[in-house]
């Protein structure tokens, strides 16, 4: 039986090498492109109608738009307006990647730590640069929670710095681990269906239920990734 980890293997489709660096177009790249085509295509189609009374597709696009706009308003406030496009893109990209991963025989690019980490580290660096641009050296006061007694500074500052530095790791690992674990679980239980013969009906039912759960998790993790990005931006803008 194939290993449940086999689904995560990167397979080159078009080998490309630039300056000695292997940047082949792989199955991962293919699903990233498909995510852009699906998310971009659907949203473009939905948005271009612009009907007074929206149809189904347009309603969905408007729902997502208002959902993200509401999220930004709640977490960042009115100052968050200008980050709307990038936050919406993060949400759309991660959500589409997660959902496309639920299609049988597809590939889940968000289940790769390098992909989630690349996104997380860029968000982390951008937010840090934003914080310094906004507050200058005063940004360091972020590492001292307000009301901390002076005697606690040697303890609190390293903890705060460490917690700040671990943000990209937790952001990346949360998404990657959720996606990977869900897909491994599905694969393992699906393996039992064939192995158990007639009684395979039980794991089959479980797989069906878990598929539903995984779709919820696909939404949830995209939401969590987005809201954390919003919270980090908020921290950079308003410190505490």
């Amino acid at each position, binding site marked *: 039986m194939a290993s449940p980890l086999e689904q995560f293997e990167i397979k080159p489709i078009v080998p490309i090498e630039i300056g000695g660096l292997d940047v082949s177009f792989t199955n991962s790249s293919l699903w990233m492109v498909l995510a852009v085509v699906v998310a971009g295509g659907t949203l473009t189609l939905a948005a271009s109608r612009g009907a007074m009374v929206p149809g189904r597709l347009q309603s969905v696009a408007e729902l997502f*738009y208002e959902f993200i706009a509401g999220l930004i308003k709640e977490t960042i406030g009115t100052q968050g307006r200008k980050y709307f496009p990038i936050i919406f893109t993060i949400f759309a990209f991660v959500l589409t990647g997660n959902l496309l991963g639920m299609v049988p025989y597809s590939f889940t690019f968000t289940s790769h730590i390098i992909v989630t980490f690349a996104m997380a580290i860029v968000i982390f660096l951008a937010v840090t640069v934003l914080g310094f641009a906004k507050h200058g050296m005063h940004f360091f006061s972020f590492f001292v929670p307000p009301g901390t007694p002076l005697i606690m500074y040697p303890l609190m500052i390293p903890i705060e710095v460490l917690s700040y530095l671990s943000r990209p790791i937790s952001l990346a690992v949360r998404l990657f681990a959720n996606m990977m674990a869900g897909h491994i679980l599905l694969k393992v239980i699906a393996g039992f269906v064939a192995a158990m013969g007639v009684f395979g009906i039980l794991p089959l039912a479980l797989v069906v239920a878990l598929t539903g759960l995984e779709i919820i998790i696909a939404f949830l993790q995209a939401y969590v990734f987005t809201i954390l990005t919003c919270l980090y931006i908020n921290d950079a803008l308003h410190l505490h």
Partner: protein
Amino acid sequence: MPQLEQVGTFPSQVVWLVITFVVLYLLLWRVVLPRISATFENRQGRVDNDIARAEELAAEAEGVLAAYEEELAKARTAAQEELHKAAEEAIAESEKRNAALTDTLAANADAAHERIETARKDAVANISGMVEDIAKQAVERLVDTTPDQGTVSSAVNTALEERTR
């Protein structure tokens, strides 16, 4: 775990992530999101417009209603006046006719009185001659003397005057 074993694929994954993400970002930022927000604005504008128009129409309708009521009140007043005038005219007319009728009746009554008076006088006049003759003959038979015509006349007249009063 391929995620940690296939380190050689990391550059490829990151490069394609950057390419696809940037493409999606540009598409959403430049095309999709402005269109959706434009749709929202249009809708809001349309709704505001409709509300404003509805308010305008409501005000207009109220104006029309007020004008109608004013017109109605005016018409009612005019009708009242007309009615009043007609009633007064009718009363005046009836009074005039009443007066005319009263006059006529009075005139008729007077004429009748006169006729009665004349008739009475005629009757008295007619009767006095006869009564004088009867009185003269009665006196002749009773006392066998012929009374003086003048005395009989005045006595009869006096008596008749007293009786026919």
